[in-house]
């Protein structure tokens, strides 16, 4: 019907050092975990760090390389300071008369009343009359170059290793979560929204990866730099170092104050984003309704209000968080001014060399930046730990009971099923199935009928051991299903669900889903018996046609046929069928009926039935209402009882069947005459 969408969603390209776009749920327009605070920051953070333990050796190497790299880098300005001193000495010395010694020049200066200049000169290695010592300068600069090159190499090696560590840890985490999903009991999935679980295994893990990568490397680098630079500053000039040190608490206070305020604004921004997003989603998804019910104006009005609120919140967030840069720059500049002035005064009175001041200015520049980084890292860290917490929560969910150590198996599979006084409830206070007993003999068809929510699906799920009984037992050919391994039990049961789940793969792979080692002949045989073969032949790629995720490549009825073929192939001793209520076209409907019949022949089958033909043919009909089996028997018996089944039957098939029955024989011939 519809044409190709003009463009797929492009979500590519990530700026370095910035988190990549999140899949969904996150990002600016998902209101994801960005601002959620972890419940137990300490324990969760420790646990996250604990996950890095297998990589201990590499982490130590990372630390070693980091320290070396920062140390080398931190020494740099000091050496450049030396170079400045050589330059300065040369520049001054060149102007002095060459025949004097340094001491004479100092004395002369003092005599001339220039005490300051004298002090300064006294501290310098000025050789009067001699210009810049290029030999010494070259040595100093080459040493500095070597240091810088080495520092860069170490820094690169450190990043390289850390990248490996983080990626491997995240890989493990992802694999573990996926493994966990396979061991969680099904009720867990019923209770949790699918999107919510999915978001934990995708968004949250991505977020953990981001935070690990960024916080570890930047925290390490920043912390080391702060320490290293501080050390060097004290070495160069304790007084100036103290001046620079004052900026630490000031920057911290400013950063945390700004962060605290912007955090509040960001929370408001996410909240408003979520509200606007929800509104847009509803308006677009229900576009037809909005139009036909004449609600465009109201919808647009709500949009405008929420859009304006979002604007105000995001403006606030952007403005306040945008203050951090200028604020830090301001503190840096203040520091710069203080050092320039104090340093200048001290050089002038000779207690410091110009090179030292020069070095100091560079140090102070290197000092404020990592401080800001550490401060801003707090947010990222918090969001990462909050995500980790959600992942851990999933990992901590109780698993299915383990399979029995000593599993039993029926000697032979006939498909005799017996329910012995079983009870089951989803919630403690609400009994769903109470003291239910029944026997299905091999080859029988059991039809389960009743209104929506009567517990029909629950009943068949109990046979699959998707849920565990609260009391009683179910036996399959005399063996308690709880005494079998789930795998053994399930591999003998074929299941066709109403929800036609197919995975993104070829038709062949989907048919062979329950039996990956099936031969081509087996697959074709199953496909032919269930009328899949016919439509597959009309597809250009035949069995190699790839089923799209949204199932757009084949019709709904064909998907149902495929699920029947899938069950057919494993040749189960017991069948569970959930007849689809959704409508398919007439011809497919006929095929579906026939395919189901082919599948059912000679097998014990439990059918959640919606079609009269299925129900009438059943050996046993279970009529369920509000979680109880209110009637059981075959069609005739139940009709004669004039109870719930009779009501159901009358409501649905009233008229149509009578009419058909009273139709002329011509009609009967017409029907019979059709293939």
């Amino acid at each position, binding site marked *: 019907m519809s044409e190709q969408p003009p463009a797929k969603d492009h979500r590519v390209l990530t700026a370095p050092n910035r988190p990549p776009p999140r899949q969904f749920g996150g990002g600016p327009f998902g209101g994801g975990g960005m601002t959620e605070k972890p419940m137990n920051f300490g324990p969760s953070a420790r646990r996250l760090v604990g996950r890095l333990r297998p990589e201990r050796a590499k982490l130590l190497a990372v630390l070693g390389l980091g320290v070396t790299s920062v140390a080398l880098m931190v020494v740099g300005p000091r050496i450049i300071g030396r170079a400045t001193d*050589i330059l300065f000495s040369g520049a001054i010395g060149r102007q002095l008369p060459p025949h004097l010694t340094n001491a004479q020049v100092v004395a002369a200066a003092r005599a001339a009343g220039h005490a300051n200049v004298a002090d300064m000169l006294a501290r310098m290695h000025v050789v009067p009359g001699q210009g810049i010592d290029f030999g010494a300068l070259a040595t100093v600069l080459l040493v500095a170059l070597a240091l810088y090159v080495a520092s860069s190499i170490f820094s690169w090696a450190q990043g390289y290793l850390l990248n490996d560590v983080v990626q491997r840890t995240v890989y493990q985490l992802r694999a573990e979560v996926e493994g966990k999903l396979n061991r969680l009991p099904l009720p867990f*999935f019923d209770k949790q929204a699918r999107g919510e679980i999915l978001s934990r295994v995708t968004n949250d893990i991505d977020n953990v990866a981001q935070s690990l990568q960024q916080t570890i490397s930047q925290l390490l680098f920043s912390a080391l730099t702060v320490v290293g630079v501080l050390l060097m500053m004290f070495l160069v000039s304790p007084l100036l170092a103290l001046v620079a040190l004052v900026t630490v608490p000031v920057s911290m206070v400013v950063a945390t104050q700004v962060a605290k305020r912007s955090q509040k604004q960001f929370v408001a921004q996410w909240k408003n984003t979520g509200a606007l997003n929800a509104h847009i989603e509803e*308006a677009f998804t229900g576009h037809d309704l909005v139009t036909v019910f004449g609600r465009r104006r109201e919808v647009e009005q709500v949009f405008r209000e929420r859009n304006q609120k979002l604007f105000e919140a*995001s*403006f606030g967030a952007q403005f306040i968080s945008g203050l951090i840069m200028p604020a830090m720059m301001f503190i840096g500049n203040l520091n710069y001014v203080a050092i320039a002035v104090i340093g200048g*005064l001290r050089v002038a009175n000779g207690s410091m060399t*110009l090179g030292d001041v020069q070095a100091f200015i560079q140090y102070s520049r290197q000092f404020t930046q990592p401080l800001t980084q550490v401060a801003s890292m707090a947010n990222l860290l918090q969001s990462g730990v909050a995500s980790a917490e959600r992942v851990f929560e999933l990992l901590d969910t109780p698993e299915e009971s383990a399979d029995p150590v000593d599993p039993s198996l029926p000697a032979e599979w006939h498909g005799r099923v017996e329910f012995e006084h079983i009870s089951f409830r989803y919630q403690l206070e609400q009994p769903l199935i109470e003291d239910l007993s029944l026997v299905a003999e091999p080859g029988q068809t059991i039809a389960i009928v009743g209104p929506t929510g009567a517990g029909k699906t629950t009943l068949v799920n109990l046979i699959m051991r998707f849920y565990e009984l609260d009391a009683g037992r179910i036996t399959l050919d005399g063996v308690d299903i709880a005494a079998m391994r789930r795998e053994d039990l399930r591999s003998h049961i074929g299941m066709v669900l109403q929800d036609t789940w197919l995975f993104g793969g070829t038709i062949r792979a989907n048919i062979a889903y329950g039996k990956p080692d099936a031969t081509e002949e087996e697959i074709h045989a199953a496909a032919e018996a269930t009328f899949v073969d016919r439509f597959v032949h009309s597809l250009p790629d035949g069995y190699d046609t790839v089923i799209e995720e949204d199932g757009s490549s084949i019709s709904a009825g064909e998907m149902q046929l495929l699920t029947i073929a899938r069950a057919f192939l494993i040749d189960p001793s017991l069948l569970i069928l959930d007849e689809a209520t959704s409508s398919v076209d007439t011809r497919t409907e006929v095929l579906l009926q026939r395919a189901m019949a082919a599948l059912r022949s000679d097998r014990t089958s439990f059918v959640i039935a919606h079609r009269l033909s299925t129900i009438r043919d059943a050996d046993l009909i279970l009529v369920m209402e509000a979680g109880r089996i209110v009637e059981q028997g075959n069609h005739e018996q139940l009709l004669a009882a004039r109870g719930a089944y009779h009501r159901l039957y009358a*409501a649905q098939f009233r008229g*149509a069947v009578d009419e058909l029955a009273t139709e002329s024989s011509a009609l009967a011939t017409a*029907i019979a005459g059709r293939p």
Partner: protein
Amino acid sequence: MLIRLLRNYLRPYTTLLLAVTALQLVSSMANLYLPSLNADIIDQGIAKGDTGYILATGGWMLLVTLVQIACAIAAVYFGARAAMSFGRDVRSAIFHQVGTFSAREVSHFGAPSLITRNTNDVQQVQMLVVMTCTMLIAAPIMCVGGIIMALRQDVGLSWLMVVSIPALVVAIGLIISRMVPLFRAMQTRIDLVNRVLREQLSGIRVVRAFVRERDETQRFAKANRELTGTALSAGRLMVLIFPTVMLILNASSLAVLWFGAGRVDSGQMQIGALTAFLMYLMLILTSVMMATFMAIMIPRAAVCAERIAEVLDTQSSVTPPANPVNEVHAQGELEFRAVEFRYPGAAAPVLRDISFRSSAGRTTAIIGSTGAGKTTLISLVTRLFDATSGSVMVDGVDVRELDPDLLWRRIGLVPQKPYLFTGTVASNLRYGNPEATDEELWQALEVAQARDFVEAMPGGLEGPIAQGGTNVSGGQRQRLAIARALVRKPEIFLFDDSFSALDLATDARLRAALRPHVKNATVVIVGQRVSTIQDADQIIVLEDGEIVDLGTHQELLETCSTYLEIVQSQLAAEAAA
């Protein structure tokens, strides 16, 4: 596209942007002035031992710093304001545009894509504007200003900039250009991992029923390995950036010292000037680095801008009439006259030569296989699509001539997918008729066989409904959607396969209760179950967009083989046996 979008939607904020530019200019100049003042301290103060000069210049530096922060803060304020206003306006424009779309345009883009375009895509472009206002604008100013200031200090060393700036750009550019394809690949791999997981979650029963947990784990492991592999490669490139940039920056400063030394020695340059030159070079290189990083946001924002422009440039295929008919007399009469509908460029029409009439109190049923065009037919009445030839008349007036509000007021639609909105049961029921009383709501619920479960819901009428109605079952959703249409009290009811999720008994009860309720309205029912439609006054059998036959249940049983086939498949399996 990006430029056009920016030009159009930033125009109202030109003043703000000019202010940002001016403020960033002052702020950058202040930043640039500081090293120059520092140079003065060295050359004029220290070298001459003039303490007073040092203090005075220090005070001057302080003042410059204050000016700088004031300008910077103001720039952030105006910049954020302009960027966020831009985002707000673009969002608003898209939303409005989509509001005018017909079902055709919506399905052309797909609702999820439209949502992304209205939210994430705008966010991306908005982010670019923010970054531009706060950093990108400052970078060239810093760069040019730095170069000027550096030249003022010493022209002789300027060739160093000619070497180091391109070196930096080339180095970063090389690394990033290699990273881009990797990031792209990473995105598809993340998608794959998510897809495998999504499949596992949605098909968890099938996975377990067919004992495929191990294979699924392997499938996931493969996707996970691939993703990790790509992430590793991308990460390894990423960690190259920082050391490379640092090396270039540091090596440049060493070069300044070495070559500067020669010029100082020959007296062409003063020490202070050299120090200042060093500072300027660092400032320039840092801003070049920033600009390079920012620049890689542009391609991404450009893609988003294109997607936004695509929506904004799309005109609805259904336009309101220029001179709408505002009054009609007859009640609920519906007629199709030789209607054809085809998608533009499509070879075969979806519907052709559809003609039938229905009047108040009569029920028309439409049956046919999937893809026969049933839903399209219904959408022609509501003008979610417009017929490509022929005409659809409501009360004797072509729907395209009618005032849309008037048209829609007469229609109660129950769509195939019974979508409910966030809110309460009551707010959903009142969706088409805000004035309805509680009593009317209960009445509608009763007819729709929804009274029992609404009463049982916590809060009753005020019981919450989650987005899309996901907190009630499919059958309940369908019944609420029917009740919603009933509350509207329209003259034309359109039921698009609206009973499919109901079990047989409920379906029967609902139809029985509905009958007296709609006796003064025209009813069109699209259905699959014969039992649902057999009582209709006329049944249209639709196949491949054409009316195969039209008549009552009895007539069709006798004359229409397609209909007979349908009946046979649903009811007569046992009768024939």
